[in-house]
């Protein structure tokens, strides 16, 4: 309860703070932040790691962006596109581009550049990698009828198309450069963003300086930024503690937050949010007895998520009890309804009794043993693994854990060589199309490690994907959630990760969101004295 009150107060303060705390942003200063991972290349269309976003995103703009002050990390806001319209049939999206935007080399950004960039993302030429190509399967073509207009023509209406354009990876590149060499941006940086690239010393840092000709007049507030590459979370905590860095954009553990608060008091501001990352239990439907939905339901009923949340949030980066959408976002199911699903009941004893009953009915003997495969990463795989095994023990299942080294893990899981295994999902934005894609039948989505085929579920997914009316879509998402987590119990959601960002109180203009890929353009950030 105390936790809830604390989070509520924090959230309320953050919500009020943005417009009410109208301190005038101060110009100047260099923002220093540690990044625990280095970018393998500079091309956002190819990479999927925050190790690219954190140091490189400030050099670019995207067509649209997520509102940097929106805590749910879902509200679209203009960026290079000033405004957009959608046709009545929902298949044509027309974007009006801003004029007078200059690349760092002085040339003007036009619709040609946007088209070339999106062609590279959606229809990459041979030999050019585009990791998120699959997300744009609905796009038929991209057109640039005039220099300030871009048109996307879709094959079918889509409820998530705008969200897919909010991807922080969709840097807008210069068309002329792409025409000459589509691989140029892997090793070079040249964009329209609020900061200009200064240097990247491998193993050490990336430095960017203020773009004086940035199209958003008056921004950025900072003189520059310095991203320092570290390789351990303790070094990062030490940097913040020693006031050698201002903020870390991924997240710290609860203990680190407590230590920082204890050491620096008011000099530290903590922003927290549920995180769009979650560990899920993948149940291999091809292995007996997990093809029996009673057994699967028993597995989820055994997990007392509410107690687990209270306890594990003290030692791990997990917290919220969630369904298929991050709590606090537009499509998330409110707790009252969520707690009706199997595994979410507040009465743990009743839940366990039901689990035992189902196991007995399915013919699973007391003390039945199976192996749970987990990934060799300490946080939060280890604590969740220990928790799950203990919960299953309490309904008479004797589970052994086999931990597989991180690099070898997915190779094993993809082969289907497991009974129950820990799966993992992280999104850059909370969007049902993205977050629920995993649960589609295995012939549609090979990354469905549960290896099941459920046409009813697929139909629900397609239906909500085509629905543009938010209220109607919510209803279908709830149905989908009920089927995948309760009726069929295809996958087991554990606990939603919890993002904890303790940062120097000098940092303003940055709002935490559920995604550690968002809000890294740094144009709204400023430092006080």
């Amino acid at each position: 309860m105390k936790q809830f009150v604390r989070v509520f107060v924090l959230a309320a303060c953050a919500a009020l703070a943005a417009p009410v705390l109208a301190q005038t942003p101060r110009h100047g200063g260099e923002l220093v932040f540690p990044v625990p991972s280095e970018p393998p290349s500079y091309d956002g269309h190819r990479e999927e790691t925050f190790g690219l976003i954190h140091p490189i995103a400030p050099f670019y703009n995207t067509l649209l962006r997520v509102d940097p002050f929106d805590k749910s990390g879902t509200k679209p806001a203009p960026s290079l596109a000033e405004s957009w319209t959608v046709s009545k049939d929902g298949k044509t999206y027309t974007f009006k581009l801003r004029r007078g935007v200059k690349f760092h080399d002085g040339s003007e950004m036009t619709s040609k550049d946007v088209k070339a960039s999106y062609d590279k993302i959606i229809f990459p030429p041979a030999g050019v990698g585009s990791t998120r190509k699959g997300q744009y399967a609905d796009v038929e073509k991209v057109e640039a009828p005039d220099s300030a207009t871009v048109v996307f023509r879709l094959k079918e209406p889509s409820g998530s198309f705008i969200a897919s354009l909010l991807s922080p990876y969709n840097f807008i590149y210069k068309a002329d450069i792409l025409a000459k060499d589509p691989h140029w941006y892997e090793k070079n940086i040249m964009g329209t963003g609020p900061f200009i690239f200064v240097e990247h010393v491998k193993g050490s840092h990336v430095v960017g300086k203020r773009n004086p000709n940035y199209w958003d007049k008056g921004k950025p507030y900072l003189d520059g930024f310095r991203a320092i590459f570290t390789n351990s979370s303790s070094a990062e905590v030490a940097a913040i503690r020693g006031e050698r860095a201002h903020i870390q954009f991924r997240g710290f553990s609860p203990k680190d937050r407590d230590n920082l608060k204890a050491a620096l008091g008011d000099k530290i501001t903590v922003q927290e949010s549920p995180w769009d990352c979650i560990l899920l239990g993948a149940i291999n439907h091809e292995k007996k007895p997990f093809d029996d939905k009673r057994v699967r339901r028993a597995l989820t009923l055994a997990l007392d998520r509410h107690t687990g949340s209270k306890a594990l949030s003290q030692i791990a980066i997990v917290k919220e009890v969630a369904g298929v959408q991050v709590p606090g976002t537009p499509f998330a199911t409110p707790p009252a309804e969520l707690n009706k699903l199997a595994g979410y009941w507040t009465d743990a004893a009743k839940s366990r009794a039901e689990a035992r009953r189902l196991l007995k009915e399915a013919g699973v003997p007391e003390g039945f043993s199976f192996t749970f495969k987990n990934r060799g990463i300490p946080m939060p795989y280890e604590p969740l693994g220990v928790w799950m095994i203990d919960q299953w023990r309490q309904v008479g299942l004797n589970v052994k854990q086999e931990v597989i080294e991180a690099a070898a893990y997915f190779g094993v899981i993809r082969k289907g060589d497991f009974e129950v295994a820990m799966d993992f999902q992280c999104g850059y934005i909370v969007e049902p199309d993205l977050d629920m894609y995993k649960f589609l039948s295995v012939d549609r989505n090979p990354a469905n490690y549960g290896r099941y085929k459920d046409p009813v579920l697929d139909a629900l997914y397609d239906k909500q994907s085509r629905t543009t009316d938010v209220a109607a879509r919510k209803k279908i998402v709830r149905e989908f959630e009920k089927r995948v987590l309760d009726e069929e119990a295809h996958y087991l959601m554990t606990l939603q990760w919890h993002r904890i960002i303790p940062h120097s109180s000098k940092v303003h203009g940055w709002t935490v969101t559920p995604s550690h890929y968002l809000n890294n353009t740094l144009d709204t950030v400023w430092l006080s004295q």
Partner: protein
Amino acid sequence: MAANPQTVDELTRTSAPRAGWLGAVVDFVRCRPLGAIGALLILFMVAMAATAGLLAPYNPLENDYAAMLSAPSAEHWLGTDAYGRDVLTRILYGSRTALMVGLGASLLGASFGSLIGVASAYFGGRIDLFVQRIMDVLFAFPVIILALVVVAVLGTGAGNVILAIAAPMVPRCARVVRSSALSVREMPYVDAARASGFGHPRIILRHMLPNVMAPILIMATAFLGEAILLEASLSFIGLGVQEPTAAWGLMLRGAAVEFAETAPWMAIFPGLAISLGVFGFNLFGDSLRDALDPRLRTQ
């Protein structure tokens, strides 16, 4: 004068040396008190392992979130860990893991190593040279690096850890045993056995091996302590025995370090257990070495 107390003792013994096993034990305790302490620690550890099921107040796997991170108290003598598991119980059960891995790895490493060492010495010539080359290659890998690579190949878990720890011990044992075996090979009874037409395996196993028992035993005991330590190290970095098994090295991982300030009992007791266990094996092994091999005697 730096005389040998054993010899002096024997010279001045007024009563006849006690006969049988009991006599040997009492003599051992009297002459080598450190070794006796070591033996006592080992016995204590074995007793812990054997009676863990009876003595332990809780189930080592049982999570109790209401009691997580609680200090030593009447209910939990050594406190609880980050999941509310009783530390005392996990230490008692952890002795099983330590002994199992330690004994397994040391026996495996010592037997393979000695077999290779003796066979190599016996056959001599090019076979000897070839085997020595291979042993040299394995020897050039630092112990933990070889163990890490083996774990990467085989995977984690107690069984694989035993193999991973035994791997670097094989060449080390082979080298020591080979030098002893070389001198045994020249012994007349080996010649006699060969003349009698016995096959190679028989000569190696029946005639040579028993006569190099002393260095093998010494190596095996030395390895046991090392093996327990190595298992603790591997589990500590996450590549050994895995949760939720009770293992001392594993108990020192993660939350024990993170919460060391506020919950130091999580880090102190398992480390103490490891230290005392290995200490016992080392003390005993030292004294055993002194007692068995007169050439290696330092007193």
